[in-house]
């Protein structure tokens, strides 16, 4: 494999005087699963949001399949090919579950509804929500909403999925159902970058773990290395705090 699908080079991002990213670089191979860990405020969510330019970057480059994202056209293509799952789901409340899922394929890609609907139904089946296709998001639990959000992202047939703390807004008993769906996707070979605090998920799924603190990558490696013999003191103290 080793086909680089996404490369970030020296990303810098500031909010006013606050420098959130101080030169972050890494690349992602097709099929690879990266989990980004780090304390809150370390810039890990900002990295994800800079990839699809929900945040403007101050400095640095993003390459998608060897092509630098330099124009709105290229950005739109990148966004169509990189799905994002948000902490607070961000489902469209005025649309039913099915309408949420077909929104992208039909109104961004121009797929005929006749094709999009059976495809969306198969995705809802995959996330275990076939019976909810005609309800509105607010009638669903957080876990169900997040699974719909995953189906909505999958509907674009993305090359990469970005997960921005997908279980942080959920009641503890609902976390499992979302992680299960994510694990299934990982098993099927989806390329993923996941920002999360779920350490077990990181151990089970990640090919590589990136630990960030104060806007830089402190260290990265396989979950085995990061969790059992981290090199840096900052990584050690973070892991100690989080895995009691």
């Amino acid at each position: 494999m080793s086909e680089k699908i996404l490369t970030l080079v020296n990303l810098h991002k500031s909010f006013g005087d606050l420098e959130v990213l101080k030169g972050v670089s890494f690349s992602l191979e097709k099929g690879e699963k990266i989990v980004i860990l780090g304390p809150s405020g370390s810039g890990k969510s900002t990295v994800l949001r800079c990839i699809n330019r929900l945040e403007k970057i101050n400095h640095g480059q993003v390459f998608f399949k060897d092509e630098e994202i330099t124009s709105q056209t290229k950005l739109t293509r990148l966004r169509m090919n990189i799905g994002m799952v948000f902490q607070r789901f961000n489902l469209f409340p005025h649309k039913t579950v099915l309408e949420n899922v077909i929104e992208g394929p039909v109104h961004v890609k121009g797929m005929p509804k006749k094709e999009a609907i059976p495809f969306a139904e198969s995705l809802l089946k995959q996330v275990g929500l076939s019976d909810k296709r005609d309800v509105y998001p607010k009638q669903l639990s957080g876990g169900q909403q997040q699974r719909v959000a995953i189906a909505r992202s999958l509907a674009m047939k993305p090359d990469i999925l970005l997960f921005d703390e997908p279980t942080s807004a959920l009641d503890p008993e609902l976390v499992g159902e979302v992680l299960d769906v994510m694990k299934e996707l990982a098993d099927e070979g989806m390329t993923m970058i996941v920002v999360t605090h779920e350490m077990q998920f990181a151990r089970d799924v990640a090919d590589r773990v990136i630990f960030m603190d104060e806007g830089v990558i402190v260290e990265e490696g396989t979950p085995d290395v990061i969790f059992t013999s981290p090199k840096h003191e900052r990584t050690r103290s973070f892991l100690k705090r989080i895995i009691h």
Partner: protein
Amino acid sequence: MKLDYSIIIDRIPNLLWGCLVTLEISLAALALGMVIGIVLALFRISSVKPLKAFSMAYIWAVRGTPLLVQLFILYFGLPQLGVELSSMTAGILGIGLNTAAYISEIIRSGIIAIDSGQMEAAESLGMSYPKAMIRIIAPQVMRIIAPSLVNQFIITLKNSSIASLVTITELMRAGNQIIYATFRSFEVYTVVALLYLIMCSALMVLSKYVEKKLDTDNV
């Protein structure tokens, strides 16, 4: 002096005709106000400084001056600069431009009430800003602002009576003309008031219906 409403019976068609003109001015002004109001609201939330400044200045000037003065500038003032507007054009333009300022503020408040995650979710699907505005943001904004919007429609309908002062024979002026002929101010003005009340009530009923409809739509 005894009240005598019978003198109005003969002249009811004049008043109903006035109602039609009132509705015509109001609807045209509202349509104009909606279009310009949407543009002003988009300018106001835009990151382009001159557009934002223009919108703010416009709203400031319109809200800070009386509608009557605005209307007189258009109808009596502009001819001095060589721009002659018909009374109907001046009336619709004046009331429309005035309403636009208020509508834009209503729309802006609706837009900023929408969670920023909605636009982000749409953009992350690759949707363009205009498309996301139309397909994702606008329907949610409409639900939020529908009651304030109908309220503004009612205000505009009542404000249209000011158009009588630039010689448009809408309901108010139609009433005045009857008074010049009959000197029955009380009878005429109460009937005029009743007719305004009926028109506004129709809007209020519509407003209740819309609110109820939105409530049951699960959002």
